[in-house]
């Protein structure tokens, strides 16, 4: 890595070694990627959403490709907080990864329970509250679409952790600035946006939805222009750092999110295609800056020039 400074700060004094993280649910518990990717080289790893108890997830099919995107309805299959704490976290610590724990629950008490169970552990850089999963019946979008509920959950978790608290928002709202402000007023140190959009694909021969659950969440390059516009709006409206997510596949895309105001980014679906991608983007971002005389990656954050 060149002398270019790649470090970024994402709230409550948390310094990441670079702005390229991996998005929750798209990087497993990190360990699946270990053969392909140096976990310690990443800005951070946001692990698959953790709930108080293990969850089996939705029946298959859970996935379908769409034009330049993918629908998923995994249904938050996860090992639960206890097995995460005892089986996954120690290994992640060993690999020197910067770990962000994505937290999921049906109600306020669930979010609090997960965070409380992990608060004493070392090797967790931040918590990210998933208030935006379109693939489960309860919680998720119901909370994520209501500014009042967002503030309530955030404030409740704020009380039980001194760690940086990120809130992940859904794009499927009328005014994302409203939900963003609700999270900030509840005590969020940073905002992660966006989660997936609700979508559906039908098998026209069988006349059934391809996904067993009917609808799923749309991710991938298809949604990138929407994510960029939302990050642009929110970054100008709130005072906390914004983490840009949605359709990143190349260093150009990383820079695009930084320019519209993201302090860091998360790479999602593209990790499945190319398990070495996130680590490569770290190096490519460095080279991109080098080639253009950008001495500190933070110079790029919000450096968009508006037309006119």
């Amino acid at each position, binding site marked *: 890595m060149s002398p270019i400074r790649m470090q970024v700060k994402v709230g409550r004094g948390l310094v990441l070694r670079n702005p390229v993280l991996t998005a929750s*649910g*798209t*990087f*497993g518990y990190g360990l*699946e*990627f270990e*053969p*392909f990717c140096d976990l310690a080289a990443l800005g951070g790893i946001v692990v*698959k959403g953790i709930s108080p*108890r*293990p*969850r*089996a*997830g939705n*029946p*298959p*099919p*859970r*996935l*379908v*490709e769409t034009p*330049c*995107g*993918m629908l*998923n309805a*995994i249904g938050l*299959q996860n090992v*639960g907080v206890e097995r995460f704490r005892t089986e996954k976290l120690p290994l992640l610590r060993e690999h020197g990864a910067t770990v962000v724990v994505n937290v999921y629950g049906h109600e306020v008490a669930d979010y609090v329970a997960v965070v409380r169970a992990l608060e004493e552990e070392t090797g967790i850089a931040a918590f990210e509250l998933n208030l935006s999963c379109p693939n489960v019946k309860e919680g998720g979008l119901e909370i994520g679409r209501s500014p009042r509920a967002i503030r309530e959950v955030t404030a409740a978790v704020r009380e039980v952790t001194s760690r940086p608290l990120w809130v992940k928002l859904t794009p499927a709202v009328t005014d994302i600035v409203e939900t963003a402000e609700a999270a900030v007023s509840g005590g969020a140190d940073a905002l992660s946006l966006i989660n997936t959009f609700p979508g559906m694909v039908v098998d026209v021969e069988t006349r059934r939805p391809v996904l067993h659950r009917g609808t799923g969440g749309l991710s*991938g*390059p298809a949604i990138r222009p929407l994510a960029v516009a939302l990050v642009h709006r929110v970054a100008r409206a709130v005072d906390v750092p914004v983490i840009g997510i949605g359709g990143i*596949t*190349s260093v150009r895309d990383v820079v695009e999110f930084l320019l519209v105001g993201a302090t860091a980014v998360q790479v999602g*679906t*593209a*990790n*499945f*295609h*190319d*398990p*070495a*991608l996130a680590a490569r983007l770290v190096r490519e971002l460095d080279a991109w800056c080098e080639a253009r005389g950008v001495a500190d990656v933070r110079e790029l954050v919000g450096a968009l020039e508006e037309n006119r």
Partner: protein
Amino acid sequence: MPQDLRARVLEQEELGGGCFRMRLDAAPIAREARAGQFVMIGLPDPAETLVRRPFSVARLVPDTGEPEALEIVYKVYGRRTRQMTRFRPGTEVALLGPLGRGFWIPGEAEGTEVLLVAGGIGAAPFPLFLQRAGKDLAGRTTLFLGGGTRDDLLLVDWFRERCGEVVLVTEDGSAGERGLVTGPLAARLDAPPRGERVVLACGPRPMLRAVAELCLARDVPCQLSLEERMACGFGACLGCVVERRHPEGEFDRYVRVCTEGPVFDAREVLP
């Protein structure tokens, strides 16, 4: 240990019945691959093929000795497989493999009789099985090769040269017996066994269900190669699950095809 490579297409051949054979310059994967394992194929830029597709490693090249290349055999279903037919020799693909758990021979002991059951493109993993098996085991192997019509029966001549016995079955009777592949399989299973037996099956879901029933009812060990939509192929997306027959607990209802499979003991999963 799976390798993530850039591999060049070496040749493509249309086999008939909407199927193609593609040869890939991927020696490191070929050397490691066991029958039933698979590779994920896409173009190098994730923006062009966001979700890679899984294909069984079908055959190694050359036929014996150190492998220099591998082949897949694929059937055109939708956008990606159609796109693959356009890859000319020289096209660079992003190839990850070998992945998953392949077939295994429970008693490699002398005399175990192997019954391969393939429906249509489900024949894909079996050339590699025979290549890896060695002469003796191959000689004790019978392949039941079924399809709708004669064009659906893949690599018949190749199989005939290497396999103890090849039984052809077509629904329209245009080649071999008329009917479903489970017909002659049931007959064989009901005949007095020569020794240990094991059934390895790959094909459409209804065929796998029927094969599993036949075997479970007769207590014959049976392995099924399953398919499910995959995004990663290495256990990370949790997209490719199938239901367990006997979940250990409420939260262990599913197993991943890409990692715990694609080959399962018929007693483990609900195909």
